[in-house]
């Protein structure tokens, strides 16, 4: 059965911004943190450590974790940005639990905010940040066109089509249409024709197969030891975590000749990700497997990453991840409700280090306090997957109410 939890989330705070209600990342982070501390019933002086993901794109100062802490006048014993690319934010909970287990912290704040759409021309700067500046940027790749390298191979190797990928966008939009902060909620539910009628951004990815920059979000979690939970707190327990990374730039990945992660597949490949290894670690630690998971929040910035990640998480055989979507398993009545705020395809991707939006959604669902739709069967266990870089890194958490 389930292993003993390694940490407990006892405070949660979220904050949102739109073009009409602009807030910068510092404002979003403060709002979320104040709410999370109040929710946990502690003061900022009880926080020992702070972890963030990458600096927000909308405020690219380095050591953003330090900048936030000093802005809060919140001295700490330790703080850091964790940057397994975008997977680092998910990994903050692992670092928090390790400090707590080592007796080095009683409360750790895990935090992220971004508002890319409100402050940055992300199209112009996108690929320069994530492509090799020496050997790739000189060819003008965009982030969609780099991810599309994987989509094209996935089609080629497994017979997947654009119509298949449209199923992912339709499934996510079904959730997103009902979430008050989903960037694409205004479009309502869509069908496959809607997706296939949208123009290509970078072949074979059409506009509805790509995440959108969605407003801004901030999210903060207060983490402590399981035996430190007090009666009034509504804890969500962390049972397992794992993370892995294989490269920074796609050119490095494509020239790998071997990988120590057992299930990574033969190389070269663009259809397996480090999430395979992250999931293996997290399941082993939690003493749980895919069949024990009631709900999933994944990093699907482009539609093909839905089925690929589902495969990497063990919910389908390689090449058959689309069935999880096609059979309705990810929907409100499904056995594996997925991306219940619409995910990055519909909720939007508020920034580059933005997985706090999925963590917040997970905590809200496990508490039974969703802002959008709740699955028909209230989830007791949840898996959160964060990904980052150009297919570079993955982090996985197993959480339970």
């Amino acid at each position, binding site marked *: 059965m389930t292993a003993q939890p390694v940490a407990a989330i006892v405070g949660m705070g979220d904050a949102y911004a739109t073009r009409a209600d602009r807030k910068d990342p510092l404002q979003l982070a403060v709002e979320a943190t104040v709410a999370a501390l109040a929710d946990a019933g502690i003061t900022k002086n009880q926080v020992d450590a702070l972890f963030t993901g990458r600096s927000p794109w909308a405020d690219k100062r380095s050591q953003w974790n330090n900048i936030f802490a000093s802005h809060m006048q919140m001295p700490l014993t330790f703080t850091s940005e964790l940057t397994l690319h975008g997977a680092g934010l998910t990994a903050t909970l692992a670092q928090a639990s390790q400090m707590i287990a080592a007796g080095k912290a009683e409360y750790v704040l895990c935090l992220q905010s971004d508002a890319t759409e409100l402050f940055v021309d992300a199209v112009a700067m996108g690929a320069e940040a994530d492509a090799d500046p020496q050997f790739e940027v*000189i*060819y003008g790749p965009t982030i969609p066109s780099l991810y599309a390298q994987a989509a094209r191979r996935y089609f080629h190797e497994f017979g997947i089509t654009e119509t298949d990928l449209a199923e992912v966008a339709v499934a996510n939009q079904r959730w997103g249409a009902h979430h008050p902060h989903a960037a694409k909620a205004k479009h309502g539910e869509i069908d496959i024709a809607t997706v296939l009628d949208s123009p290509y951004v970078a072949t074979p990815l059409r506009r509805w197969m790509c995440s959108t920059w969605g407003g801004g979000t901030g999210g903060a979690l207060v983490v402590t030891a399981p035996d430190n939970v007090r009666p009034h707190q509504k804890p969500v327990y962390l049972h397992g975590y794992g993370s892995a990374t294989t490269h920074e730039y796609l050119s490095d990945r494509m020239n790998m000749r071997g990988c120590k992660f057992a299930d990574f597949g033969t190389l070269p490949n663009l259809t397996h990700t480090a999430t395979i290894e992250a999931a293996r670690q997290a399941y082993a630690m939690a003493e749980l497997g895919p069949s024990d998971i009631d709900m999933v929040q994944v990093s699907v910035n482009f539609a093909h990453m839905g089925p690929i990640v589902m495969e990497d998480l063990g919910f389908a055989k390689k090449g058959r991840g689309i069935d999880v979507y096609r059979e309705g398993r990810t929907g409100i009545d499904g056995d594996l409700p997925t991306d219940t705020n619409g995910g990055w395809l519909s909720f939007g991707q508020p920034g580059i280090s933005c997985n706090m939006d999925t963590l917040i959604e997970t905590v809200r669902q496990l508490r039974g306090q969703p802002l959008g739709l709740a699955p028909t069967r209230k989830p007791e266990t949840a898996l959160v997957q964060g990904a980052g870089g150009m297919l570079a890194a993955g982090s996985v958490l197993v959480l339970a109410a």
Partner: protein
Amino acid sequence: MSETTAHNDWPQPYRLLDAAPYWAALDEQRLTFQRCADCAEAVWPAHSYCPYCASSALNWAESAGRGTVYSFSTVMRGPTPVWASITPYTVGFVQMAEGYMLFAQIEGGPESIAIDQDVTVRFVERGAQTIPVFTAANPG
């Protein structure tokens, strides 16, 4: 490292010292790569130690400039004005005959490019730098 400033808006390579011979050879329209004298693997991108066996015996060799398309995507929305001015254009990975993967632009209409297609190098000037691009080896 030297500057990465744009020349006529074309982004220029962020030059690391390991790759200096690569950029110099391109000025003579020669495409080069490294090969490890110890494990015989083709090494790319440029390194100072072999990533496969840690040997420092890396030699520069000349590529014949032929390969096959491993994957590709046609960019419909250019990231900056200079790229927007040439859309649609295709970028992808070429599996080089010498045994390494090279990211590059692949010329031709998006419907004319396919995985496993044979391609061959040609050289174009982008700002101050000559760079390799690929085109169908047997067009038509």
